[in-house]
């Protein structure tokens, strides 16, 4: 029988759909969530981004005006981009390096591995919370622990790291890097996947520990590195809570912690410029999509896949 032959009988559409109805029924909670809470708002925000909607008045169509203003005439947007890119470009690589380094150490077969794994993972569980951001504010305050240690050990009077526009962003980078736990767990799983006889063959080949790391571990880990990098980058672009808490929602001092999402939030909920905020949101979507696309395009040059 040829594959192209038409079947002798096909049930009418309504009958076939009826058969699948139960399936859709079971899916419905998720489908409702998807349409009502995700796709719906997304589509309406796309529409709002081309209006001047501001809560007080009904939306008025302005076309691409919001986008033109973002691109050409918004110093705070540029400040936010600056802060956000600094944050992403610093925190993502540092976090990757930290996570990988600790994972490699833990993978050496340390005693009490499970304890260390839990301890290192802890910051990732609690790190995104408001409480930790508040704690962080204390740690880096002018009379915080960091400065007390600097005073005691080096007799150096540190600045208020958070109040200083030159250093505020770095305290947030540090807070992010501190939460390397989940990437580390994924790296650990990846390291476990590399067969030990690979290292045995390499040690017979005379490769030093360092050479084994750079020539074997790192290349074989590239799929995991890639995965972690993409996830971390997206997360970093979306970061909000720490900056909000540390600067009391202002993005200060002098916009030095004005994360993109924080600026967006201020436009929407402080200044009630929903149309403009919607446009900002879509620009962020485009930026994240662009970064992710770049990552995937670059993957074929540096990511080694086994199959």
């Amino acid at each position: 029988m040829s594959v192209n032959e038409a079947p002798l009988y096909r049930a009418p559409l309504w009958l076939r759909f009826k058969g699948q109805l139960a399936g859709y029924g079971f899916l419905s909670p998720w489908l409702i969530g998807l349409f009502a809470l995700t796709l719906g708002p997304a589509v309406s925000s796309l529409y709002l981004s081309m209006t001047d909607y501001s809560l007080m008045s009904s939306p008025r169509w302005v076309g691409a005006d919001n986008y033109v203003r973002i691109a050409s005439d918004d110093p705070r947007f540029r400040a936010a981009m600056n802060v956000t890119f600094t944050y992403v470009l610093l925190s993502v690589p540092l976090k990757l390096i930290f996570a990988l380094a600790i994972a490699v150490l833990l993978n050496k077969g340390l005693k009490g591995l499970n304890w260390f794994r839990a301890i290192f993972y802890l910051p990732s569980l609690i790190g995104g919370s408001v409480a930790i951001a508040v704690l962080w504010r204390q740690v880096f305050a002018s009379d915080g622990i960091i400065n007390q240690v600097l005073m005691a050990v080096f007799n150096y009077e540190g600045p208020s790291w958070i109040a200083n526009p030159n250093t505020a962003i770095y305290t947030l980078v540090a807070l992010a890097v501190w939460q390397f736990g989940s990437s580390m767990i994924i790296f650990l799983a990846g390291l476990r996947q590399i067969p030990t006889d690979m290292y045995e063959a390499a040690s017979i080949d005379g490769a030093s520990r360092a050479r084994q790391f750079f020539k074997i571990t790192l290349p074989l880990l590239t799929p995991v590195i890639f995965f972690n990098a993409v996830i971390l980058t997206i997360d970093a672009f979306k970061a909000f809570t720490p900056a909000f808490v540390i600067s009391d929602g202002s993005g200060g001092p002098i916009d030095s912690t004005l994360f993109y999402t924080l600026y967006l939030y201020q436009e929407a909920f402080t200044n009630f410029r929903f149309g403009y905020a919607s446009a900002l949101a879509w620009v962020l979507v485009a930026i994240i999509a662009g970064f992710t696309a770049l990552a995937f395009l670059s993957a074929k040059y540096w990511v080694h896949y086994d199959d």
Partner: protein
Amino acid sequence: MTSLTLTDIRKSYGTVDVIHGVDLRIEPGELVVFVGPSGCGKSTLLRMIAGLEPISGGELRIGGQRMNERPASERGIAMVFQSYALYPHMSVRKNMSFGLETARMPRAEIDQRVQKAAEILQIVPLLDRKPKQLSGGQRQRVAIGRAIVRDPQVFLFDEPLSNLDAELRVQTRVEIAKLHADIGATMIYVTHDQVEAMTLADRIVVLRGGRIEQAGTPLEIYNRPANRFVAGFIGSPKMNFLETSISRRIGSDVALDLAGTQLVLRNGDAAALGVRPEHLKVGADRGTSLGQMTVTHVEQLGGQTIVHGRFPDQQPIVATLEGQNSVEAGDLLPLSADLAQCHVFDAEGRRAAALAA
């Protein structure tokens, strides 16, 4: 070509001893095969020689030099792993040259060595492929190629053929034998396949429970197994052991010569008669008659017929008959054997010299 000397080599993991003092000298250019049942310590011994596993006790010398503390890369060895352990992200060429690049050999010489090894192994067209683009047999060759380019004093193989299908196994076995003949390096080969052991080895080392049971040429091991374990391990189907006790010569002991020592079997002692299936003949008049076998199962191999059955006292027995025989379950076969090819083992499994000897 280099000799190896193992003196009282021991290995323990914590409080568990897995190798209990192995003494062995391997001559330059010799191909020695370690065989033994799973878990007997073949791999452990090989890995200690390779330097992948620390030696707990005793001394290892390669070419007269103590090697215990030397790292694997300085022992002049190359190893072929059961899993091949090729670097998946490197091309075949890169896999083969990695060790040489690590040793900072000049590029021209690396290329020349890789080319030569690839020609020997007929993998030149595969040089630019990745391991995942190769068949099992081709990967095996690359793994051997990676060993050859290092021009080692000693080759170590840990069950290199166990991932190949039957036909490829025979073919690769022949090629390894040829390789050994061509380059003449000392080789140690681990397997649990006794056919591989018999066909490849200059000398077989039979291991059990971390001890050497016997070391000798394949035919020595086949003809004069040191004990019941070795006798049963080498040969297929395995040797028949007929449990008996000494009943003749009432009033006097039977003294037998066991590899130089005297083995005394007293009246009433338990003993076993060992006969290889291929040494059993059908017919009461072809050697010493052993009794009537009731056939329970027949395997026709074409060239041979393997007959399973029982003696009247219910002891199982297997006979290999030449050619195709029309034997069926339920048949009665009178069996006999040449006593010169039979062995007597005492209750501890030690072998007395062949009966007639």
